[in-house]
C-alpha cells in the first residue's frame, strides 16, 4: 500500500495530510480534515452528493478520485464558498428559491451549480442541464435548483 504526506489546498488553507492509496479525496475531506459539509453518498460516482470544485473551478466527484492524485492541488468545498461571512450568490439563491429540501444532496448540487457558473457565467439551459446531470436530487426534481442557477447566471447576484 502506497502511503505518504501530501499538501492539499482546501478553501485557501494548506493542509499536510498523510494518505494511502486506499484513501479517496472524500475520505481526506471528511475523515482527516473533518469538513463534513461534503457528503458521502453512494461512493461509486452515481449520486453526485460528494461533488467539490477543483482548482480550475470544475466539478469533481470526490468519492472517485484517489487522494494521492491531489498533491499540491486546490479544492473548494461547500464550506469555502462563503466570503467574509456572507453566503455566495448561488447559496443565497438556493435559499430564496427553495432549491433546498432535505439538504443532503445540497452541497453536491451547489458545487455542481457553482462549477456551471465558474465555467459559463451566463449559462444556457443546456449548460445548466449538463452541469447538473451528475447529481440526483429526489426532493426538488431540480426544478427550483435550475431557477436559482438561472437567476445567478442572469444577475450575478442573489435575489
Amino acid at each position: 500500500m502506497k502511503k505518504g504526506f501530501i499538501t492539499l489546498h482546501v478553501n485557501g488553507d494548506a493542509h499536510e495530510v498523510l494518505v494511502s492509496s486506499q484513501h479517496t479525496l472524500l475520505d481526506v475531506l471528511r475523515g482527516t480534515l473533518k469538513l463534513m459539509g461534503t457528503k458521502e453518498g453512494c461512493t461509486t460516482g452515481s449520486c453526485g452528493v460528494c461533488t467539490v470544485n477543483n482548482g480550475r473551478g470544475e466539478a469533481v466527484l470526490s468519492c472517485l478520485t484517489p487522494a494521492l492524485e491531489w498533491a499540491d492541488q486546490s479544492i473548494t468545498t461547500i464550506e469555502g464558498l462563503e466570503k467574509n461571512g456572507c453566503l455566495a450568490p448561488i447559496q443565497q439563491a438556493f435559499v430564496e428559491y427553495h432549491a433546498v429540501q432535505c439538504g443532503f444532496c445540497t452541497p453536491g448540487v451547489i458545487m455542481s451549480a457553482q462549477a456551471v457558473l465558474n465555467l459559463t457565467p451566463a449559462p444556457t439551459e443546456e449548460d445548466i442541464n449538463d452541469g447538473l446531470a451528475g447529481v440526483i436530487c429526489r426532493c426538488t426534481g431540480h426544478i427550483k435548483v435550475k431557477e436559482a442557477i438561472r437567476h445567478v447566471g442572469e444577475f450575478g447576484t442573489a435575489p
Partner: protein
Amino acid sequence: MSKPEDLSVIGRRQPRLDGFEKVSGRSVFTDDIVLPGMLHGRILRSPHARARIIRIDVSKARALPGVKAVVSNVDAPDMLFSEKQPLLAKGFVHYVGEEVAAVAATDPLIAEAALDLIEVEYEVLPAVTSLRRAQQPDAPQLHEWAAGNVALTHEKDFGDPDAAFAASDLVITDEFRSPVQHNTLAELHVALADFTNPDKLHMWTPTQGAPMYQMALARAFGLETSQVRIVYGNVGGAFTGRGRAKPHHFIAALLSRVAGKPVKIKATGDEEFIMFRGSGETQYRFRTGVTRDGKIRALEADVTFDAGAHAEWAMILWLPAPYLNWLYKVDAVRYRGRFVYTSTVPKGSHHGGIFGRLSAGWMQHLNHVAEELGMDPAEFHRKNAIDPGHHALDGSDFASCGLKECIDRVVERSGWKAKYGKLPPYRGIGIGIGAQASGGKNAANDTSAAMLRVADDGVVTLYTGIPDMGQGSHTVMAMIAAEVLGVEPEDIRIVGGDSDITPFDWGAFSQRGTFTTGNAVKLAAEDARAQLAGIVGPLLGVAPTDLEFAHRRVWVRGSTPDATGRSFSFREAIGKAFNGVQGLAIMGRGSFNSPRPSGSLAYSFGAQVAEVEVDPESGAVKVIKVTAAHDLGRALNPLAVEGQLDGQVFSGMSQVLYEECRMDGGQILNPSRLEYKLPRTYELPEVEYILVETIDPYGPFGAKEVGEGPIVVTMAAVANAVANAVGEMLPQIPMTPWRLLRVIRHRRNHGLGPGD
C-alpha cells in the same frame, strides 16, 4: 376561521428557516456525527435467496486485530426482529441480503476485512423469487404457517357489489402490474448507536418518527420506551423508506452493547439496494360496472402484493379498500387483497405509498371504461366525482372537497378539449385524479403533541417531534406558531428530533404532519397566547379575548397596533408577564388526535393532465408538460407547496417511466443510481400548478395534506398520456422504451396506428 386578510404569516412564500445551515454545509446529518471511541459496524448478508445454514464460524473474524465485537445467531442473544423473524438469520436464510452476522471494528476497512473471515456454510434450497412463481401450485412453501405462500388476505365489501355489477350496463376488467421499486434516498441508511450504558440506548438515525423506533428497540432489548432515545436532526429524505426501524438499527445497538462502545453502521451504495423495504411486485385486477350514460355503479380491485420473506408491512394490504370509494359517488365497492411471501427482501412501499402504483393502473382502466362508453375521460371523472359533504360508503366524510374544481381547472389550463383525441401520432395526453387522507388514523391514538416556551427576550422555542425530511415541516410549524402569537417565523426557534426532549409525535406518516402536528402546534401557541393575554388584557384595560396579536405587537382589538397606551410590543408584553407580580414564564402546550375513532378528518384532492411524446423508433418518452391542480385546503407556505409538487411530479414520472429493480433469482441486477434510472435535469417537463384552497374546517388554518396526494395523480396522468400516445392501455410500469417498442411494433404488425 380567519379570513385571508387577517393572516399575516400564513400564505407567505417563506424560505426555509434552516436554509442557511443547509446551503452552507453546516447541517449535521447522522453520518457527520463521530462519538469518542466510536466503532464501525458492517453486516454479513446472505448471498442466497433461500438456504439452510449448516455452520457459522466467526472465530477468525474475532481474532483480527481491531475487531471489537462479532455477533451472529450462534453466539448472540436469540433476538427477534419481529414476531416470526430472527434479527440475525437462524438456521435458514430467506432472502438475498438477509443479516447473518455483524462485526464492529476500529476502522471500516478492518470491519470489511473481518466479514471476509466469517465462515458460513449453506445448503442452498429452492427459492421463490417472483410473485408469479410464489402462486404456482408446485411452488415451494416458504413458511410452515403459510399454505400457498399466502401470508394474509383481506376482503372488504362496501354496499352490495354483486347487485351493483348486475345493475350495470357495461362491466370492464383490466389487469396491471407494478415492479420492485427502490426509495433511492439521498442520505443512505445509517444508524449510530450508543448502548454503552445498559439502562439507556441512544440512537442517532434519520427517521420518519421516533415512537415506532423506540417501541421496537425497547421490546427487542427489554427496555422501557423512554430508555430508548432517538435523535433525528436532519433527515435526508424518506419517501416512505424510513417508517420503521430496520435490522441495521437493532444490530448497531447490539454491537454497541457487546463492544461497550458507540457503533455506526452505514449502508454502502449497493448494500442500500438489497436491504431496503421499497415497493414489491404487485398484480392488480380492476373491474368496473357503469351505466350506459357513464355513471359508475361498482368498483372492484383485486390486488396481490409481494410481501417479501416476511410480512413486515402487512398494513399496506388494508389501504386500497377505503381509497376505492374516496373519489366517486358509487353504489358499491369490492376489494380483495392478499400478501404473498417470496424469497426476497421484505417489501413496503415507495414514494406515493401503494396509491401511486395502484393509480397508474386503475386510472388507465377507468380511462378505458370512459372510452368504451365513448366519453371524454375528463367528463367521466367529473360526472362521477364526489362533492363537499359527501359521505362515502366506508364511512369517510369529506367536509371540504375541491375535486371538481381541480378537474375543471386542469382541463382548462392544459387545453385538454383542444388536444384530447386530436394530437398528432405518438403525442399523448392523459388525465388522472386522486385523493389522499390527511393523517390516515388507523388506531385510537394518532397523536401529535407540541410544547412552546417564550423566553423573557421574546424568543419563542417550539418543541416538536415531527421530523423535517425536506418537506419543510419545521418551517411551516414555525409559521403556524408565529401566526398565532403575532410574531415572525424567524422569531421561532425549533427544537426538534430528539425523543428525550420533544413531546410525543408519531411522526411524518400517512400525510399527518401539517394536519395533525400543525393542529397540535396551533393549540400550543394558542395556549401560550391565552396565558400572555391574561396578563396583558388587564394592563390595557380590556378582557384577554379583546386583544390582537400580529406584527410583533399586542393591541386592543378595534384600535390600531401603534396606538399609544393601547398596545405593547410582543417583547414588552412578555416582559410584563415575566417581570410582573406573577413572574409568569409562558409555556404553551398542545396535543391533537382526530376525534374520529378511525379514518381521517380531512382529505385532499387533485387532478393532473400530462402531455407526452413517444419516439416510435426508440420507444423513449418525453414528458412535455404536467398541469397539476391540488385542493390542499390552504397553502400555508406556497413556496414549500411548489417544492412538494416539483418533487412529486419528478418522482411520479420517474416511477411510471423509469424506476425498476431488475431482479434475477433474487439478486438485484442494477444496484446503483446509474443503473436504477431516475430522471436527470434534461428529462424534466414544464410544470404548471394550480392551488385550490377549500379551507378545510378541521385543518390548521384550513390546510390539508400536499405531500403524497399529488404524486398519486401524476402517476395516473403520465400513465394515461403514454397509453394515449401509443393507442392502448399499458399493462405494466415502468413504461420503458423496450416495453413501448413491443407495443408499437405489435400494433404496426396488426395494421394499427396510435390512434386506432
